[in-house]
């Protein structure tokens, strides 16, 4: 590759050709302010904040979209450039609500930070302000177009990373608005509820549908037995919300925090994950033996399941019928646990803390209801919402003593912890399925070949004389690639793990906004969160789901055997094609 020599702020720079000015400046420690730019999304060039002066150019150039040229002389800073950037931000603010103090994003807003950093200290313009109603038809995602600055990051993540293409800019000029096709409500669109639009939004134009009020109310209700469960990836990310370094495991502080908030018992979604492994491995072994509906597609990710229903209804028979670990555990809480405690399931209020906004939709699916008509899971809080509740309650998270999960639905194997990372469900299922197929204990438990940190990975495993073809995808554009291969019959796949969010659940749409030094979709932050989960797994003595003694007890006392009628009733579900149909 050709090397380009140029000068930025008087300093010589050498970069490969096709590098942008912004990237070139970064190599010598110059951070050009930016807003619409995102390193993992296509270049937009809409906000103009990243302008620089290029010698010989008539006007300022956007450094995100201008590529370096031999001999270029660039100025990234001057009174004129700083003034121009300030003007641009003032113009954006002019059409932005003045409600920072009451905004959920206060203190974590990229626009607010940018305005501060650029020295915007007063609002000079008072012009016409756009007016849009808040769109809260979705159970997962709330859109406030008045806070939207039209950077199109949400449109880009929805199309480029997720392949969903739900969002687009409609109309033009001052009437421009980001919405689904035909300005349909989000609830009547192909939105899969993944919440990546929330993650990439620089302001609060997208937020999760808040469940904190109903959870506070339940906690204050003496007639309710309020219990919590936390997903594997919460422990790997929640610390970031309290200033801990990314990748700091915080399982036991989280348990203590939940007890202090008033939860009567705290369970681990990991138990549901172990159970999922048993049921799904059973399903896989059956299908392998009968050569039936292969490949088996995993079903833990709510966003992926809704995607399947909108975009690939023809592949629905391939999906595992297993409910997600969250719903499996909730179903047990309102049956097994209720019986054990002598409680009426109607009095049990289950709160699930999830890294995920799609789970808020999953719980209202009629398939996931107790026979008493109530949903198995009463409320889902995202990691962000729990962080806020802990702060609101005055709990100093970093000083908390360790707490342990309640028994018996709080004990889990290491296989369950890694559910939160890409390839984790696959690896956990293989630890059990391979032992079932070979009848011998595994020599090596780590299946590093299925950890799809790059988004898509395929592997062929030799199991009991069979070649098992597996694939792992995260981010639904990657899922499309593998599903098209399945449809084309390119290779006989046996098991495919799909997670809607990049990196798996650790990169979910409900995770904390990244701390300074990191950005959303940052592979480094995903690596650190993932590392935390693999460390927890490696340090456990029980690392295979079928070795979890409480799972064995559950089958002995309550469910019978994997795939039994009772297990089917409580732990399995079904799917149906969904309108509007997505475009592949």
């Amino acid at each position, binding site marked *: 590759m050709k090397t380009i020599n140029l000068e930025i702020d008087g300093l010589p720079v050498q970069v490969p050709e096709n590098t942008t000015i912004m990237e070139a400046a970064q190599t010598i420690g110059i951070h050009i302010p930016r807003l619409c730019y995102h390193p993992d999304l296509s270049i937009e060039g809409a906000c103009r904040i990243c302008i620089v002066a290029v010698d010989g150019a008539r006007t300022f150039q956007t450094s995100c979209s201008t590529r370096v040229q031999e001999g270029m002389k660039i100025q990234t800073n001057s009174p004129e450039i700083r003034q121009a950037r300030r003007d641009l931000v003032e113009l954006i603010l002019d059409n932005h609500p003045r409600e920072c103090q009451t905004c959920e994003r206060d203190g974590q807003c990229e626009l607010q930070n940018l305005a501060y950093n650029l020295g915007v200290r007063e609002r000079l313009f008072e012009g016409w302000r756009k007016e849009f109603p808040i769109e809260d038809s979705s159970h997962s995602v709330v859109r406030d177009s008045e806070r939207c600055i039209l950077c199109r990051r949400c449109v880009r993540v929805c*199309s480029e990373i997720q392949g969903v*293409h*739900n*969002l*687009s*800019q*409609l*109309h*033009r000029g001052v009437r421009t608005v980001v919405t*689904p*096709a*035909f*300005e349909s409500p989000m609830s009547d669109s*192909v939105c899969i509820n993944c919440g990546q639009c929330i993650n990439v939004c620089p302001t609060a134009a997208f937020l999760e549908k808040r469940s904190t009020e109903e959870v506070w109310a339940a906690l204050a209700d003496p007639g309710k037995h309020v219990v919590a469960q936390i997903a594997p990836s919460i422990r790997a990310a929640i610390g970031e919300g309290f200033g801990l370094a990314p990748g700091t495991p915080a399982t036991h502080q989280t348990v203590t925090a939940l007890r202090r908030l008033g939860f009567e018992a705290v369970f681990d979604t990991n138990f549901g994950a172990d159970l999922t492994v048993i049921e799904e491995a059973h399903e896989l072994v059956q299908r392998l033996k009968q050569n039936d509906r292969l490949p088996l597609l995993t079903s833990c990710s709510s966003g992926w399941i809704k995607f399947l229903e909108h975009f690939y209804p023809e592949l629905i028979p391939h999906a595992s019928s297993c409910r997600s670990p969250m719903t499996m555990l909730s179903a047990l809480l309102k049956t097994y646990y209720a019986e054990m405690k002598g409680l009426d399931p109607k009095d049990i209020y289950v709160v699930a803390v999830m890294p995920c906004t799609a789970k808020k939709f999953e719980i209202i699916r009629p398939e996931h209801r107790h026979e008493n008509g109530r949903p198995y899971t009463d409320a889902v809080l995202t990691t962000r919402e729990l962080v806020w509740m802990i702060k609101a309650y005055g709990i100093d998270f970093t000083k908390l003593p360790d707490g342990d999960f309640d028994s018996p639905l709080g004990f889990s194997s290491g296989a369950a912890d890694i559910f939160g990372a890409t390839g984790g469900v696959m690896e956990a299922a293989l630890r059990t399925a391979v032992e079932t197929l070979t009848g011998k204990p595994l020599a090596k438990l780590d299946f590093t070949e299925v950890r799809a940190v790059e988004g898509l990975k395929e592997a062929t495993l030799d199991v009991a004389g069979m070649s098992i073809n597996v694939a792992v995808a995260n981010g639904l554009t990657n899922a499309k690639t593998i599903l098209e291969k399945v449809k084309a019959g390119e290779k006989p796949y046996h098991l495919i793990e799909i997670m809607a969010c990049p990196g798996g659940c650790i990169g979910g749409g409900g995770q904390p906004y990244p701390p300074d030094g990191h950005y959303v979709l940052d592979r480094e932050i995903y690596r650190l969160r993932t590392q935390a989960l693999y460390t927890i797994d490696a340090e456990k003595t029980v690392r295979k789901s079928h070795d979890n003694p409480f799972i064995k007890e559950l089958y002995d006392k309550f469910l019978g055997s994997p795939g039994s009628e009772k297990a089917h009733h409580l732990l399995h579900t079904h799917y149906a094609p969904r309108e*509007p*149909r997505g*475009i*592949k």
Partner: protein
Amino acid sequence: MSVETAETLDPQIIAYIEACRKLPHPESYLMSILHRVQGRYGYLSQAHMAEVAQRLQVPTSAVSGVSTFYHFFRLQPQGKYAISVCLGTACFVKGADKILEAFQSELGIELGETTKDGLFSLENTRCLGVCGLAPVVTINDKVYSQVTPQQVPEMLNRLLAAEAKETAPTA
């Protein structure tokens, strides 16, 4: 939005979309396809746009984005009485914007929209070449000259009266 549409697109348009799909960058023919749909049906219904999206395999949200970006595309069927207010220079300086406002408030619709009963639709036009008659309004093929905002309710009432006569049962 209530719209009536044929169940599926005209076979000629479907054939055109199929032909586009065989060309490089089929998505680049979206505009041309939408023009044909509007040419055939007079406007772009949601059902037709969704069908174009499926047949061309272009995201429905993108079709929706294009159809709302360009003013030429109509998203509602034209009314029985298609009202068009000239906003050319001469008409504008003679207060055409006030006439437009009068139609908007009388009919309760915005530019490009059609009343719920399907009777009136409202559009604007550029210079019609009869600046001597400014400000000018056309309703279907009839030209109204030197219109004032005060005349607007009366113009509409006359059309409604004609309409009532037409639909009244014959004695």
